[in-house]
């Protein structure tokens, strides 16, 4: 009667919530069962639940690229949700790939994508459920090579002990080389260390166990160096030079169940010209590389046809800066209208163009304007280099209010370097001014939708590696909470306080993100302990337990303050200093000093700041600058 192959029995699947998470077989998923050309089995793992992992474009790109090679079969793996986790442990069911349903412990590679720090305990879940040792040094020749990649690999040290290899940078460039090397080693019988040692010489590859850290008495790093002469002292990120001419999934996998990003995603550019000083992505993906608009149009149409999705969205760090945005958006509006497809807009700079587009694709009554001033005062916005002035915000709001909009969302950060009480209260002030603008520009008789509604949200600032703020101390948990209270009180004092709603993120989880973001290798033990205490799915606030982290730190004799609130000197060697993300430390120091002097810097289209990324010779670095053109 049973004519199919599943790793989980009917009994198990009927017991768990959303069994469709675990059965594979989705439209456009790739099944190479029985294909004799397959020489490498690759498990692409996203350490979070299916609905989150399936929404990630990067994985789809790599899945498509790897399966495009006839000798590779790449399958997907997501974290089994807590209900299945319990059953798998009890019944000793090994973790499996969705496509083949085979145990991944027999695969050649386990690729784990590192998108946010709070998934670190889920990495250990994947390894343990797979039946593999948590620590790389304990793995044997038969076990898969565990490779990490993604934004958090720019400071891989806190999880370094769990990985055999990290791939630093964009995944499109070096996998072929790595897999060929692996094949050659496998043919003569795999010696793990011999393979890893050679792999470590491929650009972008970091094999943590071949690098040693020495510490000073104060706990900071004294030295960091390879144990073998031939290995590079610095590892440079990998980057795609021609983004219009590379891998892109024309047939992304279409999930059966509703996932977070249930639509076609068009990545129009990589990188960002803006250089906000708190933003890590803005530095990591330099220089900006735009994709050709004609290519984007073709991709959009083809992907819609191949998936049947009813929605498309654009993805990039700052879509308003894409040169051909108008052309692309008007093209999509026209084509999507014919096909009854929705367009989900990225957040755009508010101007006549974006308001026109918004009015065409959204219901004005239901949609809202979004601004991310990030700081409440102009002074602090200069410090963080957020080139968004109060005037721009108020003018944009006025324009939108006159066009019929009445909802505004504002995003801020608390705890930024140099922040004062005045900056903090500025959040309430700015919110109030926007509300006042509404009453100014919209006459009484036209105030239909129950007047203006402003939602201001704040998150807590976490200093990240490879940003000019990597030297900045982080606030304490108590400071964060006090600051949020200050905003809350200040909002209540405003004339338009009834029209303003204020939300803030939890401080606890920010502290731990701060710990892991700038952490060192000593934290592997802490992460393991937290995991052993039962932590999982910590990016879900209901599953995050602050006290487990404090306990584990204490047991390991480490201090949270050392990693978060401590003042760092310009001379300190950071755990991630051996990586080269394209921008130089000298540039970051310059920007840090500019910040402390409350000085803005121009963006890459206006003027080159000499960040170091020009060495790639592509993208915005080779375009003529506005400042020059004006001369």
């Amino acid at each position: 009667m049973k004519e199919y192959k599943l790793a989980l029995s009917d009994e198990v699947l009927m017991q768990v919530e959303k069994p469709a998470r675990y059965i594979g077989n989705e439209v456009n998923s790739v099944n190479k069962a029985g294909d004799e050309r397959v020489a490498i089995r690759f498990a692409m793992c996203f350490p979070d639940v299916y609905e989150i992992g399936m929404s990630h474009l990067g994985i789809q790109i790599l899945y498509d690229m790897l399966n495009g090679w006839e000798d590779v079969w790449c399958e997907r793996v997501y974290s089994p949700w807590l209900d299945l986790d319990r059953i798998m442990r009890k019944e000793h069911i090994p973790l499996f790939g969705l496509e083949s349903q085979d145990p991944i412990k027999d695969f050649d590679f386990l690729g784990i994508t590192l998108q946010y720090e709070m998934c670190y305990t889920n990495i250990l879940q994947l390894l343990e459920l797979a039946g593999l040792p948590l620590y790389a040094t304990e793995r044997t020749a038969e076990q898969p090579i565990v490779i990490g990649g993604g934004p958090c690999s720019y400071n891989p040290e806190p999880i370094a002990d769990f990985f055999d290899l990290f791939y630093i940078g964009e995944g499109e460039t070096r996998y072929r080389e790595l897999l060929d090397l692996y094949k050659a080693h496998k043919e003569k019988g795999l010696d793990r260390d011999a393979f890893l040692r050679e792999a470590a010489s491929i650009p972008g590859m970091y094999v943590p166990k071949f690098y040693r850290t020495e510490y000073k008495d104060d706990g900071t790093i004294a030295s960091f160096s390879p144990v073998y002469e031939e290995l590079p002292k610095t590892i440079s990120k990998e980057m795609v030079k021609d983004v219009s001419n590379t891998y892109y999934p024309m047939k992304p996998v279409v999930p059966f169940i509703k996932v977070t990003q249930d639509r076609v995603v068009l990545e129009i550019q990589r990188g960002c010209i803006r250089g906000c000083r708190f933003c890590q992505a803005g530095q990591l993906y330099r220089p900006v590389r735009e994709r050709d608009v004609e290519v984007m149009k073709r991709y959009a149409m083809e992907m819609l046809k191949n998936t049947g999705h009813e929605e498309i969205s654009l993805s990039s760090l700052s879509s308003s800066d894409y040169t051909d945005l108008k052309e692309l958006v008007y093209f999509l509006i026209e084509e999507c209208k014919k096909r009854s497809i929705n367009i989900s807009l990225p957040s755009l700079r508010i101007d006549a163009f974006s308001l026109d587009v918004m009015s065409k694709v959204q219901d004005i009554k239901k949609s809202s304007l979004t601004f991310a001033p990030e700081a409440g005062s102009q002074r602090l916005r200069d410090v963080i280099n957020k080139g968004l002035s109060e005037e721009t915000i108020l003018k944009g709001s006025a324009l939108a209010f006159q066009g019929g909009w009445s909802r505004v969302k504002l995003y801020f950060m608390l705890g930024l370097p140099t922040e004062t009480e005045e900056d903090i209260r500025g959040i309430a002030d700015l919110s109030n001014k926007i509300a006042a603008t509404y009453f100014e520009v919209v006459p009484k008789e036209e105030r239909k939708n129950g007047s203006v509604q402003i939602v201001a949200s704040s998150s807590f600032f976490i200093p990240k590696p490879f940003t000019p703020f990597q030297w900045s101390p982080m606030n304490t948990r108590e400071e964060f909470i006090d600051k949020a209270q200050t905003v809350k009180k200040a909002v209540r004092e405003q004339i338009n306080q009834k029209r303003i709603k204020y939300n803030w993120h939890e401080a606890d989880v920010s502290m731990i993100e701060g710990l892991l973001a700038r952490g060192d290798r000593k934290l592997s033990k802490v992460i393991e302990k937290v995991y052993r205490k039962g932590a999982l799915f910590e990016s879900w606030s209901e599953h995050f337990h602050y006290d487990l982290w404090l306990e584990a730190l204490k047991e390991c004799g480490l201090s949270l303050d050392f990693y978060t609130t401590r003042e760092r000197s310009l001379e300190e060697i950071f755990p991630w200093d051996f990586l080269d993300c394209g921008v130089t430390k000298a540039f970051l120091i310059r920007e840090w000093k500019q910040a402390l002097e409350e000085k803005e810097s121009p963006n890459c289209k206006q003027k080159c700041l000499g960040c170091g990324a020009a060495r790639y010779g592509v993208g915005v670095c080779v375009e003529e600058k506005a400042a020059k053109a004006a001369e």
Partner: protein
Amino acid sequence: MRVRIKFSKHGVVKFIGHLDIMRYFQKAIRRSGIDIAYSSGFSPHQIMSFAAPLGVGYCSNGEYMDIEVNSHQGSDQMLTALNEVMVEGIEVLSVVALPDHAGNAMASVAAAGYTIEWKEGYEPLADLEKTVEAFLNRDTIPVVKQTKKSELSLDLKPGIYELTAKENCLYFLVDASSSGNIKPTLLLEALYRFAGQEFDPLAVQITREETYTALIDGERRTLVPLDAVGEKF
């Protein structure tokens, strides 16, 4: 034009719930290029309705949905176009045009036929044939149905049109109308209770064989498959 589509559901897709099957077909229809009609408004949706929801874990040889199309290239082309974009386990079996007077798929459902097989590792009900005979020989088949708020006592007998046992399999044809729907598990629970045993839903594989509508001709009521009221085009 209104079109009725019949499909089957087997294998791993039996774990896809009803709402997700609806979403699956919305996307499949876009992929197939069928010129389906949309509602108007800011987020237009396809004009589509399903007959009877199928529980998670059930297989089927007789699922139905109705769609409205603006134009077409004949039923054969539509059937081929759909099957080209199906996943393994879902197959489109027939495509017919509905006459104007035909009710929509959901309202048309009168009955459904189910096969019950015991899964590997589970024992079928002992003395199946005899038990079934005795079960049916009673004047009433009382059951207690748990609803959200209360318990409801009812008699299953009038809703059971057919019940046969054969080689460790059960087949039954029961009322599936919105007012008198008999869930297969309700019937199985009653049968087990009658045999003095407890029913384990995990022990059986339920397959819906067909979904029927009733044709009324004076006093006579005949059950025909839902696609029998339409015609190829």
